[in-house]
């Protein structure tokens, strides 16, 4: 396997993990894509220095965190919302829980499968159509607070379901 092939394989193997990290700190899908592309290019440039005994995702996240901290602007707070200290703390939390991330996508699919149709429709409005809470409330003729609470409860329920499946080894 040549270096390019190895790099791309590693990158795409943890793409969701890197996107999750960047997405939690950067606002706006275009800015998130920009940061991801910048990180991917930097990772490739730095690839000769990658220590293969380390997790690639953790190494990639470290570089992404550095990029985000460099771009942080205290006065604007956008698109990087969190402070460098918070970014560092989030990066460490991702590192500590990296083992839990594997198999999560499959577990999530199974958990979504168990949701009632109404709940899936609400999630689809939020994530498939990218509607804001106000727009969802308008569409469903519900109050903003009701939509917010429903989404929060759904997320909590999904997280709980995913964790239970992963700890029971039922994701496979």
């Amino acid at each position, binding site marked *: 396997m040549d270096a390019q092939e190895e790099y*791309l394989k590693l990158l795409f193997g943890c793409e969701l993990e890197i996107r999750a990290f960047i997405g939690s700190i950067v606002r706006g899908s275009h800015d998130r894509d920009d940061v991801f*592309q910048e990180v991917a290019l930097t990772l490739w440039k730095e690839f000769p220095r990658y220590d293969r005994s380390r997790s690639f995702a953790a190494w990639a996240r470290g570089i992404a965190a550095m990029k985000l901290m460099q771009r942080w602007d205290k006065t604007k707070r956008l698109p990087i919302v969190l402070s460098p200290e918070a970014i560092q*703390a989030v990066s460490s939390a991702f590192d500590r829980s990296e083992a839990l991330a594997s198999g999560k996508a499959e577990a999530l699919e199974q958990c979504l499968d168990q949701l009632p149709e109404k709940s899936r429709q609400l999630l689809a409005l939020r994530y498939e159509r990218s509607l804001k809470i106000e727009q969802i409330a308008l569409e469903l003729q519900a109050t903003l607070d009701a939509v917010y609470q429903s989404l929060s409860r759904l997320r909590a329920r999904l997280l709980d379901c995913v964790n239970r499946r992963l700890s029971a080894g039922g994701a496979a």
Partner: protein
Amino acid sequence: MSNSERGQELIQKYLEALASEAEIAELEGLLATDPEVAAAFAAAARLEAGLLGYFRQQYKIDQVAALLNAPESPATPAAGAAAENTGEPAEPRLPPGSTFTPRLDRLAEARRVTGRKPRSESPRWKSIAAAALVLILGSVAVWSIKRGGEEPLRLVSGRLTVAGREVTAVPENAIFEVAGDDAAVIEFGNGIRLELTALTRATLNRKSGRPVLVVKSGSGDFNVARNPLDFRMETAFGVVTTEAGRFSLNIVEGRPGPSSQPASLPLPSLTVVVAEGSVSVEHGGISTQIKAGQQRVFFSST
């Protein structure tokens, strides 16, 4: 309220972009001091990314489902000729790394998850597909009447070769290469102007009267004035479309080399820079809108 409960509350608000500056500051403090809150934040972020990935995937699968349910129509002679001359399928292939390619076999499952009914039980899709077909055929007919058929192509400057032989006109449905050191300028009568740099290899097809440029390698500048049919370009990295815009595109093929010097090798990629208007790139099952002044790089995952 415990740190953990307050942390959860703030994380939910933060994810919905509803947190105030004071609340973001409070969340930052908790993240930096309480590993439990930081862990909850990481878990929530992973779930958010997972949900986005899942539902956008579903959206794409539903689009594919709509296509599969559309009435079948025979390939046009031009499309057939394209397949014959280029040795490639007439229909566009999904870009390498497309995330929904391996999931097509899970279409039935996806329909079940999203509550869609199977084809035979779903006349709604047929109606939509039929209506879309009528609309498309109608648009093409109106366009053809207005334009008096397909727009002529003109090689304004530069040299083109097909299989090593120089040609004087722009060939359709055959792979051509820009020969010599100068760029080749190609114009359509309807306000589309392409400037392809030396050594660029491409094929020009028409699908339903719409010009489709399949770029194998190379680069170029593209100027598409607003016209009834938008312009479409296909590459191994994704499909580029625009209704109107001025943009440039560069394909880096990338070649395997010694693994000791990876950073000196270019990554296979497609770079799109938009100067005016906007351009859409369909890459890996995701559509990205690129506006004037923006640049995007797309990598192949193979």
